[in-house]
């Protein structure tokens, strides 16, 4: 189950996230619970595998906004890094970066399903 303490252990700035949810922890946690199922993670993975920079950018960009809103700081930073590289159409192998992001997602998922 995802709790504020659990998120804190993952380095999430929960104070900021909760305050953006107008102080409602319940509402914040409800939204964070939705993150692991976010389809854009998979879209990003697919695009990275296929080398589709445009599709990758769109997925990464969308994720970035959501992660930022919930102050999932580490994931947000990683996602931003990927977004900016993709925005600049940098031709590199995105797999390691994307995998790092996905493992963070999995960590959150594990916390939720525990």
């Amino acid at each position, binding site marked *: 189950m995802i709790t504020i303490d659990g998120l804190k252990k993952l380095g999430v700035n929960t104070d900021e996230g909760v305050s*953006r*949810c*107008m102080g*409602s922890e319940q*509402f914040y946690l409800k*939204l964070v619970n*939705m*993150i692991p199922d*976010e389809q854009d993670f998979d879209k990003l993975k697919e695009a990275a595998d296929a080398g589709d920079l445009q599709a990758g950018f*769109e997925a990464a*960009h*969308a994720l*970035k*906004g*959501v992660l*930022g*809103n*919930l*102050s999932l700081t580490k994931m947000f930073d990683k996602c931003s890094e990927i*977004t900016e590289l993709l925005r600049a159409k940098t031709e590199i192998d995105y797999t390691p970066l994307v995998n790092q992001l996905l493992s963070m997602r999995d960590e959150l998922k594990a916390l939720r399903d525990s």
Partner: protein
Amino acid sequence: MVMTKDNKILSGGDLTSAIEWIGEQIPGGFFIYRADDSTEILYANDAVIKIFGCSDIDEFKQLTGYTFRGMVHPDDYDEVDKSIANQISSESSENRDYVTYRIIRRDKSVRRVEDYGHYAGFPGYGDVFYVFIGDITENYLAQQEDYRRSNVYTATMERYSSAAEKSLSACIINLSSGVVEEVRGNDLYSCDRVGADKEDYYNSRLNSFLVEGDREQFENSFRLEELMSRFYKGEPPADMAAYCRRESGKQCFVRFSMAVAHNPENGDLMLFAVEAEYNNEKATEVLNEKVLVQQYDMVAYIVDNNYSVVIGDAEKIGKGSIFPKHRNGVYSDYIRDYVLETAFTEAHDIDELKTSLSVEEIEKNLENNESYTVNVVCRIDGDIYYKRFTYYAVDKETKFYLLLKSDVTDVLRHEHEQNEILADALKSAEQANAAKTSFLSNMSHEIRTPMNAIIGLNSIALRDRDLSQQTRDYLIKIGESAGHLLNLINDILDMSRIESGRMTLRKEEFLFGSVIEQIKIMTQSQCRDKGLEFEFINSCDPEEWYFGDDTKLKQIIINILSNAIKFTDPPGKVTFMVEKIAYFDRRSTIRFTIKDTGIGMDESFLPTIFDAFTQEDSSRSNRYGSTGLGMAITKNIVEMMNGSITVESKKGEGSTFKVTVTLKDCDRPGSKKAFDSNLVKALVIDDDEVALEHAGFVLENIGINCDTATSGVEALRAMEIQHAKHEPYNLVFVDRKMPDCNGLDVTREISRGYHDETKIIMLTAYSGDDVMDEAVAAGADGFITKSAFPSIAKSEIEKVMLRENKRRKHKTSLNGKHILLAEDMPINAEILKQILALKGMDVVHTENGREALKAFESSEPGTFDTILMDVRMPEMDGLEATVAIRGLDREDAREIPIIALTANAFDEDVQRSLQVGMNAHLSKPVEPNQLYSTLEELID
């Protein structure tokens, strides 16, 4: 057998029946009662029963309880009892006592009876009183009346005697015998002598009147019936005043006063007639009636919340009167019904006015003041009247107040007209003067531009090393003269500003220490250059902040100090002393003393030292390079500051100037802390790259990071972007002179668009009030000369940044506003909905641009107050959607605010969204407060 006091022996039974038999025979009242506490009546004859208004003995018994005590009026019994006891114990003849007392008859009427009683012991009765009583009510009253009349006679006589002392004439005339019996006074008629006929007395008076009608009044006022009636009623003497020519030839107002009284001794009717001079009293009377009436339409006194009109006549007062209907009444009722009722509500708060006019308020105000005035504006029948209520305390202890009410409508109207005439005259005079001043000012301004060229070129020419010594000398002289001319022009400009009233004092917070420090540093170096000793004494706290115009303050002190240096030859000394000489009500009075050991001035010159174009020795002016305006300007500025300037001087010994100004302390919460330079986001606009670099360096030194722009256009673009991002520049430096556009125009542009969020400081090459005024007029908040930039940048920035923004942003309540939201990411949408709902906004959520467009298109115009548009969305992105919405043919399509939301914070993105017609651009993650403030600003 019983023994009486005088030892007569009586036998019981015969006696009682004998006494009762006699009792029935005698006509007066007769009764016997026990001489003990019971006072039981043993016998009362028919006459007694009649005196008490009873028809038989039973009624009498019922009325009195058949006791003596029951017969006497309850109020009189104690006295009667005492009197009887007294008389028995004394050795009065035959133990007879006499008292009178009141009784209450059966019909409740009160009568007075006299009572002759005798104490005796009777066989068959025991110790008793036997009493004869009779009703003496009528006699008693008559006697009382005699007594009263005798009193009146005495009182009249006394009054006569005291009045007679200072009288013109005073006579007592016996009307019964018709002759004068007594005469006193210091201006007698020949007939005023003892034994004279009363007719002569009357005739002489009747012939003395000079004014028509007075004779009739005299005859009327002093008719015998009138006088008699006053005598019977116990009223004071009748009187009248009239203007008379007396037998002695004296003409004056005479007050006649007459009273009659019976002489109790012989019953003769006596007339007491007194005549006294009445000029003073008459004058006072006229004063009261005529003068007061003219000044005040009502004079009344107030005591215990009751008023009584002393002077004033409702009938003589024209329309617009608030004169009370009754001459006496309740004061607060009068105020409520006549004053507050008509008070002009646009001029008064009625409750406040009611309080001002209340007795409590009058009392409070008169405690320490001579008078208390309340002005009231009334509206009566559509016209405005001005009333003035002035209160005086007649006696503070008893709270006895005098109210003088006047109508000042005419006075105020007249005053108003006079003022208008004066204002017109003043206006035309001012216009004439303004024309002169404006000519001077314009000319000077025009001359200054070529002067700058002359001075500039002159200094360039002097750099030429190949100049002959002579040419160099010429050039140096040209430079000095040009410099002098420029000073003169600047002074003339200052003077003309003073004269035209365009010289204004800024009211700004400033750090006292920094002003003094700047003056000190400047003076110190000038003294050093000239070889003078400089002494600086400061006893003020340099950390104090004041309100005022520090630039002008500096100007006047430096002006005097430069004079001191100018007119002192080495090895002289200049002293500059600063001290706080008073502190009251958060105002500090500071005295600056500037003392030199220079050439000094003649005493005869001192009075004119502050006049324009006066110098003691005009031949010196060139040597000292003065314009003759400096002191005049200084004095004017000091006066504008409500300060004072004085001078003492002795020829050959030096001068001392003292400037005293009072400065308002200013609260500077946290003023001692440096302001937070991290909060400053600055932009410097200058066409010169080097200048930009320099400015950047200076700002960095004081902890401010800045962006730069080399043109107005570039600057405005940068400002637009930062504004849209809601991270505006809050401080902009604008160079006044730039090639592509004038710094003033840029300032105006920035000020127009961003005044709420941005402070502007103008950088200029030269200083001067006119330059500064232009900058302020264009919207600059501060002003720094480039040369002073490094030294005063920090204090000026601090000053400008800490100043309150006068204009407030326009704000709308967000409650109930309708928001159309286009956001594809559900989580983001959830958060936004939550944020918006918290302020009571209704949100319609769409998942992409196309849906948003559809939702907007199908809504009634005006449904949505604003659109929040994610930029990146599937199907149709925010930019396309915005273009489409703006292109719709409906009235709100072009007006509705559209706010871009994106995770992109790049300037290009911001610009793109502005280009397609969005109004603002917020970056994600969205800060609720930033979103609220953006919405508040954009929604009408």
